[in-house]
């Protein structure tokens, strides 16, 4: 089983309710907005509870991987910039426009700049995963001449990414709005 890169791993193995959530809550307080935590638990009930807790607190529940007795839950701390709707990169496309291009088998690159764990549970097939925070170090993995469609969850992180790419010589960069939060096309997940 591959390991997903996260900002923090919380060991709540062997603990019964309510402790997995008590600990997760505490860990979340110490994280920065947008960071991802992996919570390892053995209490089967923790899955439904973590999910419900995340919904109630506004954190993003990404998914759970079961490895034998251990449940690995992935959560992303809620971040304010996700609420921002104004984007700066001039070239934008809607989800539907991107979906049409994918269905038309056009030669394009889909770049997903969300965190690795977000990508793992739900992404567009063949999308390349480079989290926003790593983008500047990994420009060389991308072709400057390619037609690149940048996606994230809401269009905000992808806007930053699109601007950075344009500033660094990438010629055909499009920001997809809103991105995965509204994506109805086909997806791939680690859990299948």
């Amino acid at each position, binding site marked *: 089983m591959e390991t997903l890169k996260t900002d923090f791993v919380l060991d709540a193995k062997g603990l*019964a309710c*309510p402790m997995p959530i008590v600990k997760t809550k505490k860990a979340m307080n110490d994280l920065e907005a947008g960071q991802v935590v992996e919570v390892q638990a053995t209490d*089967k009930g923790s899955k439904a509870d973590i999910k*419900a807790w995340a919904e*109630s607190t506004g954190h993003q529940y990404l998914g759970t991987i079961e490895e034998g007795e251990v449940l690995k839950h992935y959560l992303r701390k809620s971040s304010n910039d996700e609420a921002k709707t104004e984007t700066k990169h001039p070239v934008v496309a809607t989800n539907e426009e991107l979906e049409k291009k994918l269905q038309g088998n056009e030669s394009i690159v889909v770049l997903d700049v969300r965190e690795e764990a977000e990508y793992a549970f739900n992404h567009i097939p063949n999308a390349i995963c480079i989290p926003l925070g790593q983008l500047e170090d990994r420009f060389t993995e991308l072709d400057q001449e390619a037609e690149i469609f940048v996606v994230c969850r809401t269009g905000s992180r992808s806007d930053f990414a699109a601007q950075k790419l344009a500033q660094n010589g990438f010629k055909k960069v499009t920001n997809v709005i809103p991105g995965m939060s509204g994506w109805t096309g086909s997806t791939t997940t680690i859990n299948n």
Partner: protein
Amino acid sequence: MTVAAGVKTISVKDLTSKILNHEKLFILDVRNTDQFDDWKIEGKNVEIINEPYFELLEGVDSIKDKLPKDQDILVVCAKGGSSEFVGEQILEAGFTNVYSIEGGMKAWSEHLEPIKIGTLKNGGSIYQFVRIGKGCLSYLVESNGQGAMIDTNRMLEPYESFIKEHNLKLTHVLDTHLHADHISGGRQLAEKHGAKYFLPPKDADEVKYEYNQITDGDVYDVGDTTIRAVYSPGHTIGSTSFVIDDQYLLTGDILFIDSIGRPDLAGKAGDWVNDLRETLYKRYKQLADDLLVLPAHFMTSIEMNNDGSVSEKLGTLYKQNHGLNIENEEEFRRTVTENLPPQPNSYQEIRETNMGKIIPEEEKQREMETGPNRCAVR
């Protein structure tokens, strides 16, 4: 169990007694709301509210106004940990009589309460084991030192203590059908006590173990009484009812007090509708009106008698049960095949376990059985 100072505990056995005595109870269920909506503690005088424990980690101020000041507060969660945690928060908020329900809904789901239904003509009695948390009913017939069990649940301890206490020799263990909502303990109980295990062969196509076949009209002698098999398909194709001592009719999952069986849990709703119709509208009609119907399930506490038992005369059900009074066959078909409630949790895995195809670990079996039984249509 060690308890932090202040929060008292109440066992599911004591809780059951209180509910069966119709005591006024206030329960705070701190599981998440989906689980609460799916399945919760019920009783005639039970007031229950839900607030997930993870909303109460910092204290109970948000629900303080909903908690009674002059009454015990019972807190329940999935297994008993979070209820204790929240109980402490409630004490800190100034309340005094706060109880955590020991073992939570897991223990609640597994508790069996034996209730005497009545006596037999030549001596002996019939008992109903009420699994109050899940709505499952199983039966023990005892006559002249011998015993028979019908629709045994997975937890054998309550039956075994009863058998020991009454000094019985278990001779017959029967299942009315292959269950889809709970794991049968029948085979295991029979093995442990040297009794014969019986199952209707039409439900047993795929079973992986030896069993004795139940055939329509079979009569089993238990002490000085008899159990007679009446083939009554419809919930499953093998479903068989038992007439005991010419007084009691064990209907399995075919006929309940306020509802009838659903025909779809083996994936064959359409095929079995006619069988269900035939059983309920013809076969059962040929039986005596004054037989006391004893089903394998109840759905709500409304179906309970004052002593907590679940029973009604067949003749009365023909007057009052909606499912027995649908004249139009097409309407009947629609009622039992369309808009059915969700299927019981893990019903496929439960069926496979009862066939002996899979043998999950105990903890897994518990988890599979969590939730309501949902074997009926109204």
